[in-house]
């Protein structure tokens, strides 16, 4: 984990992002919506451009923050990619004082953030926040193999 932080590019419009990913054969089939089938790749591309994508299940209504091949609650394979809000509130949080190997800093805050009907785990920058405080997506942190994770800041 490099612990480096990235700032989101100017958010693309959904149409622009769609034309980019939709023409890529490795992105897989289009889902029912005009958004790409959600994989780690398409989720990461969206996050790097300042967007949070999730999945909605038309059968049970669950909205997931992490891409899966089927609904984690009911098993439906009809899940659709949805745009999640980039603002939300702290569901729970902790400040990590003993980091894993590869993270050079300590005393960083990690939170589970309620974004619309979904929740995602992210790093917090700026002021320390508490449960219920409002946040907005501020970019991303990168872990091992440069995988991105959401970075939030107080709204």
């Amino acid at each position, binding site marked *: *984990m490099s*612990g480096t932080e990235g700032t989101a590019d100017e958010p693309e419009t959904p149409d622009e992002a769609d034309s980019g990913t939709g023409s890529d054969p490795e992105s897989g089939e289009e889902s029912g919506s005009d958004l790409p089938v959600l994989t*780690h790749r398409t*989720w990461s591309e969206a996050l790097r451009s300042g967007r949070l994508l999730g999945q909605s299940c038309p059968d049970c209504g669950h909205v*997931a*923050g*992490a891409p899966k091949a089927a609904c*984690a*609650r009911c098993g439906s394979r009809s899940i659709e990619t949805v745009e999640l809000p980039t603002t939300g509130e702290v*569901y*729970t*949080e*902790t*400040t*990590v*004082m*003993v*980091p*894993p*190997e*590869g*993270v050079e800093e300590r005393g*960083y805050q*990690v*939170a*589970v*953030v309620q974004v619309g009907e*979904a*929740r*995602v*785990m*992210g*790093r917090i920058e700026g002021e320390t926040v508490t*449960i219920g405080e409002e946040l907005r997506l501020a970019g991303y*942190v*990168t*872990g*091992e193999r440069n*995988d*991105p*994770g*959401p970075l939030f800041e107080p709204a």
Partner: protein
Amino acid sequence: MTRASVVGAGMTEFGVHEEPLAELFGEAAFGALDDAGVEPGDIDALYFGNAMGGQTENDTHLAPKVASHVGMAGIPAQRYEDACATSANAFKNAVEAVESGRHDVVLAGGVERCTAETGLDTPAMTRIFGSASHRQYEQPTGITFPGVFALFTKRHMHEHGTTEEHLAHVAVKNHANGTRNSKAHFGKEVTVEEAMEGPVVADPFRLMDCCPFSDGASAVVLVSEDSADSFDAPVDVTGVGHATDVVPIGDKETPHVTQAARDAASEAYGQAGVSAAEVDFAEVHDCFTGAEVLASEALGLVPDGEGGFAAAEGRTARDGEIPINASGGLKAKGHPIGATGTGQIVELTEQLRGDAGAHQLPGAGTGVAHNLGGDAATTVVTVMGVRA
């Protein structure tokens, strides 16, 4: 309903060991065999747990390796990995094997080394433990395992008024219990003040809220109910529930309720035909003090929201209404990951036989073990009872 019987139990001390994995496992395995009065050639199958040997010691394909070390090469030997619930899952499969009649006499157990004896320091081991969180959607944030349980506990504190002092009481209780257990990693009492002054690991957890890195092994010999009477001291396994929950944390419905534990407990109690109120004592997975609070509620041993209060009021102490972790728990007995689940079974076996020595509980007739893995997305709950 009796599903299988434990007829032999053995474990190493949990603590710091320089011996390699196979030698450590051998000590626990022969302890279990000697206790049962059987020889290696009597064992029909090995259900073996080790969570991280590949990452920590570059040591994999361990089932036949340890089987070879203890004179059991040739039999079906399989390795399980479910993070910290590793050997409870091995145990579950061993129960099913003798229950179904597939095998007559089996050995279930596990081994792990997590201390600096592996050559790894705290940051390296913290990274390896963190591999149980979601690789793509959690690890990039820098979350650690103390952090995972801190997230659950903070939400529990927010909803139910659990305090850091409540958490400290869990540590104080389990450390006091550990002083009575000769196999425990820690044998020293701590005070609430000491616990609350320790360095923060991941808030609200301070050092004393966290279990240690431990080395150790544990094993039990299992037979079917029908053949148990030909052994000296059988103890019955009356229920084993195993459930999973969604990973990552963000996609769990209500993370801090640890739903897999509730589902596994319901299944295990149903098989055993007991209610939570009929449980005399419990060994729960207190990898962190907050985890014991959540487990005590998920098992129905205390009402939801009262786990912290119950610990602070002494209701879960060894002389309380429902003793939890009389062995010292993971907090004081230690947590050699792959040995922890069957270590709890060893503890239940000894308590139910009246053989637990200085930490024996009076009137131990029905005991429960709760062993979770990862972000509690795997939980195995076992009910055991004195043989009728």
